[in-house]
């Protein structure tokens, strides 16, 4: 596969694809995320790390509209997203996977992918009931597109099985396929390596880079597996207690005393 098209030098450029400016949210008195900013370039591959409870998934929920930010701006390309509903944000081009897998268990693998593919071209009730030519064309297109995706990820043989019957690793994979089926510009992966064995993690790392290149998406990755994050991410943001404590390229992050303190819980002088 070709090397990554974009390098970290593009990071600070003004034409970031996803531009998050000072967003924050509180739940009661708890400031879950404060002043979170991020500039994710086109085809960038960034990591978001931090100890448990640091607010990583909350950031994802803010970016995808599950929570509405109390303050701050989110811009995707030239679109302001800040207060959009989740389905509008998905349609605008941000797709995600979930930390605890959230497939549609009683739908087939194919239907899981088809459902994600249909968001921009849904036919009306009348077309559906009368089974018009346009309806058939669209359904055929959706099926074709979904099978193509499944084939790319070598899951086409399982297309007619229920999603709940897939193995854990395949379910994780299907989540990624499903997110890609929405034709995203930005892909948010929430701990995709959780529960995979070392061998599978290595392949996942390779896959994520390939996905980025082949589908031309920018990727933001939450992951606890440090070797994986350090290997593939161009830039890393470290969160602790809802606050960004550090941002930089992997080598900077690895040696940053604040990061080590956040993970190991010690004071700075102990390092």
């Amino acid at each position: 596969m070709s090397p990554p098209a974009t390098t970290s030098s593009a990071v600070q450029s003004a034409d970031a694809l996803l531009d998050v400016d000072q967003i924050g949210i509180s739940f009661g008195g708890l400031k879950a995320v404060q002043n979170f900013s991020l500039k994710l370039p086109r085809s960038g591959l960034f990591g978001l790390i931090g100890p448990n409870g640091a607010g990583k998934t909350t950031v994802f929920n803010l970016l995808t509209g599950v929570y509405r930010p109390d303050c701050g701006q989110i811009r995707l390309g030239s679109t302001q997203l800040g207060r959009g509903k989740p389905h509008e944000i998905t349609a605008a081009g941000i797709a995600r996977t979930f930390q605890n897998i959230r497939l549609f268990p009683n739908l087939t693998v194919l239907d899981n992918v088809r459902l994600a593919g249909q968001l921009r071209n849904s036919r009306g009730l009348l077309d559906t009931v009368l089974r018009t030519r346009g309806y058939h064309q669209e359904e055929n297109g959706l099926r074709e597109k979904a099978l193509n995706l499944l084939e790319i990820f070598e899951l086409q043989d399982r297309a007619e099985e229920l999603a709940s019957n897939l193995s854990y690793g395949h379910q994780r994979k299907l989540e990624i396929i499903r997110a890609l089926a929405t034709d995203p510009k930005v892909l948010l992966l929430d701990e995709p390596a959780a529960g995979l064995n070392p061998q599978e993690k290595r392949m996942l790392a390779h896959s994520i880079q390939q996905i980025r290149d082949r589908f031309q998406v920018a990727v933001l990755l939450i992951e606890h597996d440090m070797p994986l994050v350090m290997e593939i991410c161009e830039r890393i943001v470290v969160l602790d207690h809802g606050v960004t404590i550090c941002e930089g390229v992997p080598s900077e992050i690895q040696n940053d005393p604040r990061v080590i303190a956040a993970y190991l819980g010690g004071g700075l002088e102990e390092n």
Partner: protein
Amino acid sequence: MVGTVSLSTKNREQKSELRTGNALLGLLPIAAGLGIATLMHFFLPGLIGQFYARIVTDIGITIVLAVSLNIVNGMTGQFSIGHAGFMTLGGYTAATITYYGSMFLWDSAGKHGGFLGSGEWLFIASCVAGGLFAAFAGYIVGLPSLRLRGDYLAIVTLGFGEIVRVILQQTGKTIDDVEDFKNAGWAQLIPPPVGGAVGFDGVPKYTNLFWVYAVLTITIVVAYRLKGSSLGRAMISVREDEIAAQAMGVNISRQKVLAFVMAAFFAGVAGGLFAHERGVIISPKDAGFQRSFDYVIMTVLGGRGSITGVTLAAVLLTALPEMLRDFEQYRLIVYALLLIFMMLVRPQGLLGIHEIWNFWQRPKSSVKSASPEAQV
């Protein structure tokens, strides 16, 4: 190989079998259903007698109600127990139109014209009007479903049925005399003269096997086509996982309201059929929760989202009490026991999420392994 994505670079070459649309082909199932309905109308009463023909009519109406409720409860996963409210609302609307419409047009509230005669067309148009009115009510009830889940939504829909019941009890006496009706001022039409607590008597009895099974055909075709379509998948995704559905771009508010409106429409039409059925006097208590509960039981017993399963349950639960008329007072006890039994041995319902033909269709192991180099 589990977590891997070795992105195969080649494109899919062969296309899956494309089904091309043809408007006439799309109407085929409906035409077939209408043909069967016509045959039933002319030959069934002769074959099995009036008593059983009446039960077959009841079964048809019940299936329409259960299958439509299944769009909300089974497919979209919104627990509604106010379905009889929509039915009764539609029934009263339709009955009002035919009763007073007949007086206005033909100076008599009696039946007018024979099979497919003008009276029957007024009747079926009034049923559609009843459906539309119920659909409007469905829209109103659907709105709170955007904010409420589970038990809370169930209570709202339960309350809706009770509201319909109480309001209908407050209506005025029917106007029996044509001259009185024609001379009636607005004051006598408010509240609407639809019989009050005793029910709406004197509605012309137009309902017959043809119309019931024609409506049933359309209901099932619509429900089935919905289920297999993008719209239906979106509804099912709301049932499966709302958060994930949103993340996949599904407008869950729209899907929920659409489900409520569609279910209410068919319930309203079925209510029209019910109100014009021989031997029936539609009354406010039809909107109560007992009748709603009957339909909920059918969807639960049949299986969430399974159209054939729910149809089967509707047939069983309508036919059995009729066959066991002498034991009618035990009906609710039997229902309760049946439900407990089902929840213990088969909580997913008779057919679960499947349709009946899925059971003797061998599970398809693979769609196609197209690429020769695609190894597992």
